[in-house]
């Protein structure tokens, strides 16, 4: 009994400590994002300017030293199907038939302000850098692919064909933007459909373009608030779902959806030992009482027989 009581108290203590150790990262509110990270960089993609020349894809391939593609970058038959970033192509351009004709959209990591992949990674292999890039660390990844499951934009790609697989995705040309260069795709775009700068500046520019040409643009900057805000934002002339962007992503960072569950963990760690310990104590006491009563009864029977015999 003593051993169990000790164990019970140990558990209680453990639970209390766990309560204190709650994943206490204050999940940022939208205001925090605006206030705390005004200087992170981003890219504004103006879909009305893109002509599907795929120069960005080619530049990305060169800058990141990716393997040669199956079809060359001036093969426009690729537009017949919808593609997504792969382990060999960090960005792709898709063609969409929309209510305003043929439009093109570039797909790549959106470098979310509160990335779902970083939240999901159980070994903290993702980092949101101050410059804006969301970077994956090869030294830590165990290949569980939960980040791929978490990303609402279906971005991270996995090297299924390798026995030592990596996650592959756009890095916002982290090494280049450090040295004052532009990301490869931004530099290559002949139409300046992609512009690179501080996220706060880009939002201002986007709003200015909308203001100046309201017939050309939808009055919304995709990525300003989506998924808690992304570093890569889009301007469009048609509703965003027509160019393949998910409009039901909501404005919460994905991490918000797990907050409820995670905060219940320490509660279980404290309440369960108390609850279960009580059950145990109760049933043990019950059986002790039963035993005791049985014992007394046996005594009575013995005594009565004895008395009878003695009569």
């Amino acid at each position, binding site marked *: 009994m003593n051993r169990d009581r000790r164990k019970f108290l140990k558990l209680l203590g453990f639970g209390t400590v766990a309560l204190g150790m709650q994943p206490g990262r204050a999940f940022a509110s939208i205001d925090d994002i605006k206030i705390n990270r005004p200087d992170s960089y981003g890219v504004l993609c103006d879909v009305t300017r893109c002509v599907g020349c795929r120069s960005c894809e080619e530049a990305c391939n060169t800058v990141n030293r990716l393997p040669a593609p199956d079809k060359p970058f001036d093969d426009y038959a690729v537009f017949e199907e919808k593609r997504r970033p792969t382990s060999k192509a960090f960005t792709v351009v898709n063609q969409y038939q929309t209510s305003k004709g043929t439009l093109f959209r570039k797909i790549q990591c959106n470098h979310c302000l509160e990335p779902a992949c970083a939240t999901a990674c159980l070994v903290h292999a993702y980092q949101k850098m101050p410059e804006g890039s969301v970077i994956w660390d090869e030294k830590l990844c165990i290949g569980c692919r939960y980040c791929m499951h978490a990303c609402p934009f279906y971005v991270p790609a*996995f090297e299924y064909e390798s026995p030592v697989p990596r996650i592959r995705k756009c890095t916002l040309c982290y090494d280049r933007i450090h040295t004052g260069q532009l990301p490869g795709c931004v530099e290559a775009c002949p139409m300046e459909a992609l512009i690179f700068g501080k996220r706060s500046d880009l939002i201002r520019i986007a709003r200015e373009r909308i203001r100046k040409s309201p017939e050309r643009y939808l009055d919304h900057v995709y990525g300003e608030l989506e998924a808690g805000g992304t570093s890569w934002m889009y301007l469009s002339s048609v509703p965003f779902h027509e160019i393949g962007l998910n409009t039901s992503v909501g404005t919460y960072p994905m*991490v918000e959806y797990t907050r409820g*569950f995670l905060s219940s963990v320490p509660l*279980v760690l404290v309440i369960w030992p108390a609850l279960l310990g009580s059950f145990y104590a109760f*049933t043990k006491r019950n059986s002790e009482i039963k035993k005791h009563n049985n014992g007394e009864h046996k005594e009575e029977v013995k005594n009565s027989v004895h008395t009878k015999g003695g009569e």
Partner: protein
Amino acid sequence: MNEIKEWVSENIFLGLEVKEYLRRLITPFNIVAAGILIIGIPLIIIRYMQGLGAVIHGSNDQPFSLFLGWGLFCGVPLAATGYIMASAVYLFGMKDYKPLLRPAVLTGFVGYFFAVTFLLVDLGRPWRLPYPMVRSFGPASILFLVAWHVALYLTVQFVEFSPAVFEWINTRKLRKWAEGIAVGATIFGVILSTLHQSALGALFLLAPTKLHPLWYSPNIPIYFFISSIYAGLSMIIIESTLVYKFLPGRVDPQNFKVIDRLTLGLGKAASFVMITYFFLKIIGVAHGADWHLLFTRPYGYQFLIEVFGFVLLPCFMYVFGVRTGDVKLIRMAAFASVAGVIMNRLTVAMFALNWELPHREFIAPKEFLVILTIITIEILIYRWVVNRLPVHRAHPKFADEED
């Protein structure tokens, strides 16, 4: 030296001459099992040499395929037997269920052990399995919680099962120690189980855009936890059904007299849990105002079949079985309930996930073969242990020990 030889002969070769033992190994079941292993084990080796894509059917859009869907998401609730039986016996004082305690703990331990085995095949870099424990922490991740809890729980399960091992290798002192901490281990085990069973469901919380609304709910963790309870209860019934039928010589003859009554008791408990679960699922649909989705093809119908055909129906089978004392009906209900849990987990992890993406394929022969291989190994190991260790019967030298 002689003592060891004797022990090996008695406990490894079941008291038979080696030649005789090997001869007796040739049974239809073993031949089929060997056939599966001969095909499957090379496939596993190929997976390690050529990467996941050679065998596993995951894609960039759908990284979790049948392999993890079965191995982790189904394997874990089906191994929930240990904490349930231990709670019943140690915490709620239901000493009648003693005969089922060790089998339940063994089922749980083997189940979790092989869930980890599935992980070792599915992880991209399995040699880094200990990383979330020792190298780098990502505590905001629910998978981090799952990893830690599965690791801890595996240890707890082993501790709970260790008395059987200690009896087998004849170490009284260690066995006494293990029995002593049984209650504490049980409580710890229940805490861990609650958290990781629900955490497996919570893994889907941060993909609200990907999971079909009929299955997505902020209460997924509760669904997974509650269904793991009746999955565990049903698995205990199934395990005893199979062992009592196919390995009757390893079962204490006394147990045959009480097993029917115990099975009815388990069925009764399961029915309560299942009706609760049924109503929780209905509330989930109401909460999301998803009634109109119930009659869509195919997901609406699938949901209805799952909830009515594989939760409510087995629940009623349990109720009628208990009421009429029909143990056969209870056993059938157990199989149906487990099928329902498997259906639910595979739906959440695979079919209803990314339901809006076009061109999804689920049929993957190589993957299926590897799953079959690991299940076969699991059954063989389970059988090996039941044949040798005091799981369904008391060890003759310890039969008099008071727990």
